[in-house]
């Protein structure tokens, strides 16, 4: 360092600053708050403060009937409501010994995978927006709008679906809707390539994300990081393949994992690109389902007063934010004794404290966006 500069710097007083980021900060994805201790632009730590969106969904589960709880599960993660429906219904079905109709299973998979595309579009779109690229966000939302239209056609709702019911699905998918879904996929697959040209292989974007906040495999296990975030660390683990449920074993799809192609294994870029690749896989799955869609009823006959025998079960589904677990306890009555929802965002959030040490403040935004944490899912 220059001698004059050094002498000027001597005696300057610096101290750590404590800043509150959120809960209204636009890049904290809902209402999250961080208490950040910084030394200039470098963070000492970022302590997450959650709970702003706590709606006691688990307690409500003890007060309403089994059928009546399904709409509440929507609200656990409103960007991917279908998966919470699926998880709770699977738990109830396994407890009560209900067989889902085959057409119902296929309808579920179609709806879920479309929902995954919509959720990942939000994830990658807001990711780009958070770090300063607004255009890709608009493109992503435009595509998601079409998925929302399709969802409206399937079940009448655009965000909180209440589509999957115990025993099957609420409404059958009509042939016209199938055609429209195919049209959408034909249109959407080239869009992903366009999106890649626009954003994924953009030099500025890559430089901004590569090597930022890599998660090691050990940390991922210790903190139970799940879903795309886990796969970005190079762990090939997907509930759909490894603890199979529904009709996923009959379908062919790849499981994209992070490779560290642009930086370090498990960095922000890997977490981003895994989601892009997953959207393409979801398209494949929906196409196969549309081809294989069998005839028959969409929902099995289930007693209106649904009373599963006493027992407990833990069910996992692969939601867009990873392993969503439903731990449901029945005491043989009309109401669940306890419903516990274990979500991917909650555990991902617990890791931020550790990862944030020594990061730049601007990189914290990239880290939060890359983990795709979602406030309603953390707080439930």
């Amino acid at each position, binding site marked *: 360092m220059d001698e004059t500069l050094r002498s000027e710097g001597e005696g300057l007083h610096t101290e750590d600053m404590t800043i509150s980021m959120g809960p209204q900060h636009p890049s904290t994805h809902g209402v999250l708050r961080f208490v950040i201790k910084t030394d200039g632009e470098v963070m000492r730590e970022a302590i997450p403060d959650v709970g702003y969106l*706590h709606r006691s969904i688990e307690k409500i589960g003890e007060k309403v009937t089994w059928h009546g709880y399904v709409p509440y599960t929507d609200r656990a993660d409103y960007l991917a409501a279908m998966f919470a429906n699926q998880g709770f219904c699977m738990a109830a079905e396994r407890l009560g010994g209900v067989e889902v109709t085959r057409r119902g299973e296929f309808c579920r998979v179609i709806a879920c995978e479309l929902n995954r595309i919509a959720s990942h579009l939000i994830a990658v779109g807001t990711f780009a927006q958070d770090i300063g690229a607004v255009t890709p966000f608009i493109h992503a939302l435009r595509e998601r709008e079409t998925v929302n239209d399709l969802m409206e056609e399937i079940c009448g709702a655009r965000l909180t679906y209440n589509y999957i019911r115990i025993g099957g699905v609420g409404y059958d998918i009509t042939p016209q809707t199938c055609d429209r879904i195919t049209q959408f996929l034909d249109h959407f697959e080239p869009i992903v390539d366009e999106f890649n040209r626009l954003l994924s292989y953009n030099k500025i974007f890559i430089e901004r994300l590569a090597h930022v906040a890599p998660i090691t495999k050990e940390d991922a296990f210790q903190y139970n990081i799940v879903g795309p975030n886990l796969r970005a660390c190079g762990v090939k683990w997907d509930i759909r393949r490894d603890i199979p449920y529904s009709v996923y074993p009959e379908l062919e799809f790849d499981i994209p994992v992070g490779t560290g192609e642009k930086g370090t294994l498990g960095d922000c870029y890997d977490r981003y690109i895994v989601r892009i690749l997953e959207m393409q896989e979801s398209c494949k799955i929906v196409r196969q389902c549309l081809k294989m869609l069998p005839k028959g009823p969409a929902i099995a006959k289930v007693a209106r007063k649904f009373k599963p025998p006493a027992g407990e079960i833990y069910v996992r589904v692969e939601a867009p934010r990873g392993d969503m677990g439903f731990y449901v306890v029945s005491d043989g009555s009309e109401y669940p004794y306890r419903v516990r929802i274990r979500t991917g965002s909650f555990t991902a959030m617990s890791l931020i404290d550790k990862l944030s040490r020594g990061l730049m403040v601007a990189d914290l935004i990239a880290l939060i966006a890359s983990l795709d944490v979602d406030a309603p899912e953390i707080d439930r």
Partner: protein
Amino acid sequence: MEAKGIYARLEQRFPGKVSGLKDAVADPLLMVDAQAIVEVGRFLRDEPELRFEILSDLTALDFPKEEKLQVVYHLYSYTFRHQVVLKVDLSREAACVSTMEGVWKVANWFEREVFDLFGVVFDGHSDLRRILLPEDWEGYPLRKDYVEQEEYDGISTERAPLVEKLLR
């Protein structure tokens, strides 16, 4: 490994501390002595034939009739693709168990949530604060006998039923 095998290994390593195997239900279930839970957890994680790398979930159940709280641990092994559920019985008045934080770090937040909603104290926890509710909230909402406080910060927690309002 099958539930029976896991049970046999635990029985051999911790005689008298593990009991009540139920493998007829979907998830094999074991009752573990509250004193031994951390040791059992560490053993299950490190044993080369078991390798439970992850703590999938940690939660609690309240049974006021039997006067007990249960803390429930769901473990899973990516290597061997087996799972096991551990349960610990605690008294409702003085619910206290050692923290699992030293074995799986994710337990930190899970335990804070259980402390927040059930009032179970985790001995040796590094940062045991409420996580979802405000610091000054009264009571533990997920307990079965929970009564909501009438007001919080001067705001009433009561709300007239919507239907009655419409009928009026």
